[in-house]
């Protein structure tokens, strides 16, 4: 019997795939995803957040609502694995629920799995970060809100609150998602209603976070405002009395070091390094008075040096889009051994994980990991889809990703790839969904 040709093998594989149910395909994809990154990559932030979840003392440094969710999951299964399952599971279920509206079921399942495993999306979903949970929750929220069932809509709103709890800056991007629930309304009313829903969800999330926080580290002040103050001062080339005025009220570590740092001429986008570590220039605020001083300094910098502030934010945004020489978008470490020892969690990568890291890192060297590409693609998609009545869901997704990326212009705390992940994920979903829908469209609903 002659060996089957590659074409025959491909046909057989296709027939086999076509015989699987969407649920089987989704489960297989989920297992494949989990296998490649089990039990979940853990950065310094992830480890600190696990510590907070386990000990029950929450700070504002690590998305308190997410910490609470993690704490609840730790009732059943300890460690990062349940969070990995939650964030990827939400993404998988949500993306399938959305794509199912425009694509045939099996094709929707395959497309969903394909997007989840696409290295630019996978690279962030594999890490236990608020950005990953945010993506899962927001996609699930969109799927819930477009579902005709009332309970699904309520679940969608809950997911929207969770997403806002992960990153408050997502609230504007939640408006196109919330608008999906108001599909039959006139456009101005729908937009107003969606904005009201997004604001309400953000307010609930913010309120819940405030209630949950035990230890206020004034994270916004040292992560965003100090970065802006320092960045603006550098862009405005302040020195002498002007520099003193810009940092008035802040506890400068060493004036000579500040002079040298500002006059260095290089941009530094590391918010943590400005107020933490050996080379910091100011002390991080430790009480409300110091936090208030940072607020004042930030307002002063923005108003007194608006041009320098805009330049600083623009430069940061350009770096965020992946333009520049230093670009390291992939984090794929299972966690620092010494930091994890007190938490009794330790893991090592399998052969498959090492191989998947190699693949992801290879892809990361290509433009596929550059957010500017997705910014352009999202705009192009919105133009393409504006007349396509069958793609409102995908339009809303792409618009949401675009809005969040634009919000980063003022909200980004550093040029991290994960801040652009929502743009990347939504663009992938929109383009893959639209492409697959051309060949395997969803059957018209009765």
């Amino acid at each position: 019997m002659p060996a089957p040709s590659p074409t025959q093998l491909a046909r057989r594989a296709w027939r086999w795939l076509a015989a699987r149910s969407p649920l089987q395909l989704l489960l297989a994809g989920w297992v494949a995803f989990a296998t490649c990154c089990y039990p979940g990559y853990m950065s310094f932030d992830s480890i600190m957040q696990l510590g907070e979840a386990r000990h029950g003392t929450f700070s504002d440094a690590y998305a308190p609502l997410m910490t609470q969710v993690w704490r609840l999951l730790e009732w059943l299964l300890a460690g990062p694995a349940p969070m990995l399952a939650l964030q990827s599971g939400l993404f998988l279920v949500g993306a399938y629920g959305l794509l199912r509206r425009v694509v045939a079921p099996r094709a929707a399942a395959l497309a969903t799995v394909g997007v989840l495993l696409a290295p630019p999306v996978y690279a962030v979903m594999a890490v236990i970060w608020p950005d990953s949970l945010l993506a899962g929750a927001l996609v699930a929220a969109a799927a819930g809100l477009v579902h005709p069932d009332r309970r699904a809509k309520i679940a969608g709103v809950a997911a929207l609150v969770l997403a806002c709890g992960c990153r408050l800056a997502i609230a504007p991007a939640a408006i196109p998602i919330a608008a999906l629930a108001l599909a039959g309304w006139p456009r101005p009313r729908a937009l107003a209603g969606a904005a009201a829903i997004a604001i309400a969800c953000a307010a609930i999330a913010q309120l819940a976070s405030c209630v949950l926080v035990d230890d206020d580290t004034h994270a916004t002040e040292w992560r965003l405002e100090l970065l802006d103050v320092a960045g603006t001062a550098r862009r405005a080339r302040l020195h002498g009395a002007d520099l003193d005025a810009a940092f008035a009220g802040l506890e400068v570590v060493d004036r000579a070091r500040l002079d040298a740092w500002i006059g260095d001429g290089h941009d530094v986008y590391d918010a943590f390094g400005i107020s933490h570590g050996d080379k910091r220039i100011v002390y991080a605020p430790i009480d409300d008075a110091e936090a208030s001083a940072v607020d004042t300094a930030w307002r002063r910098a923005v108003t007194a040096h608006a041009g320098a502030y805009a330049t600083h934010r623009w430069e940061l945004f350009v770096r965020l889009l992946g333009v520049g020489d230093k670009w390291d978008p992939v984090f794929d470490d299972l966690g620092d051994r010494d930091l994890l020892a007190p938490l009794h969690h330790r893991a090592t990568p399998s052969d498959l994980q090492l191989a998947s890291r190699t693949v992801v890192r290879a892809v990361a060297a290509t433009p596929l990991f550059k957010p500017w590409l997705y910014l352009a693609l999202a705009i192009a998609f919105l133009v393409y889809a504006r007349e396509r009545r069958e793609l409102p869901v995908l339009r809303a997704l792409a618009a949401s990703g675009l809005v969040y990326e634009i919000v980063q212009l003022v909200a980004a705390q550093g040029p991290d790839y994960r801040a652009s992940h929502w743009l990347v994920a939504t663009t992938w979903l929109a383009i893959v969904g639209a492409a697959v829908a051309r060949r395997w469209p969803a059957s018209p609903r009765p």
Partner: protein
Amino acid sequence: MTARARLAQLAGDRRVIVGAALVWFLVYAFPGYIGWDTEAHLLQSRAGIYTDAHPPLLPFLWRICEVFIHGPLLMMLIQALTLLVGLDRLFRGLLPPRHAAIATALVFVFPPVAGVTAIVIKDAMMAGFVVLGVALLRERKLAWALAWLVLAGAARWNALAVTLPVLVALWPHGATRLRRWAQAAGVWLAITAAAFGINAALVDVPAHMWYWTHAYMDIAGTVRWLDVDDRGARELLDGVPLAHDDYHRSLADRIRTSYDPADYRQLATGDDPIFDKPDDDDQRSAIAGAWKRVVLGHPAAYLHYRWDNFKNLLRIDKQHEFAHVYVWFTVIAVPQSKDRLIHDASASRVQGVMQECAVWLSNTPVYWPWIYFLIACGGFVAWRREAVIAGLLASGLLYECAWFVLNPTGDFRYSQWLVLVTAIAVAWRIGRGRGYMRSSDSDGDGA
């Protein structure tokens, strides 16, 4: 449909019942417990050098698992899922669907069964493979059934005591009962040879473990019940490597003092060992010779010591111990194990409570194997017409009896197979109810 009706419908769904059992088990066991033997399997698997101290199939299987995920999770899932799928298929052939699902779930999460399945260990691996093999054998899927039974045989050396009765009870071919049994015996020999062949092919370094474990234990245990003086003991142990000679105490006295019918480790390791581990073939031949002289020459003393040991295994008049169930993620009381395995885990809150309950329960009669032994004996007599149940009970009894000569340390895991088959039989009897008999039940004529 109301929420209540929907809940009732869900509770009646076979998949939901079995799925709930799996979730319950995973919450208890995730990501899998690691004991001494588990550590040995994992270290061998990572080193890629297999010894025959434990069946090398396990480290080999673990090596394959670690291609995908490092740590105990996949191994634990293999032993749990084979058991769950096997139970599900087995009960579906014996009981109505809902009863089958409930029986599957209850047997699977029954603490003495789940407590062993949760630790990555050859006993649990064997149990899962055998149950799945038996279910497939009953469905007449012979190739798959035999494959699983071969794997079971390779997962534990003494699984041959398990596979013989089930093959005799369920082998479907042969015109007469005698021919059927003869064929079953032939198949058993073949799968046992295949299982031993697989392990032999995998072994890189022979450990000669019997000489410094079972042989020393049998020699010392038998000498304990012999009326011999120092000179007599030395004559019996001629050529056996002694750890150090204490001329102030007689050898016979030292052996009597160190007597523990449920342990051998104090004989060649620890603070005051009596024997040395053999280094060469001459010493191993001397030990084998001494074993023959002592054990075969004094059967009454040997049986006395083995009965002491077997009583310990069955927990007849056994004292309360810290725990008879293993619930630790790294080797208990060996913190270095975390570094050796590069693995650590912690219990969730619910899991912590379940572990405490399991430890408490392990010191209750639920963990007394002699009770299951009696139930299995009674069940075998009462339910001998149901071939699969009779075969399973016979295998449980034979396997447990084999421990009379094999049992080293009296761990509860050695009795898991007896407990499991007894639980299966009892669940089947309860689920069958009065007078219920499926048409397919008539395919066997009893063991």
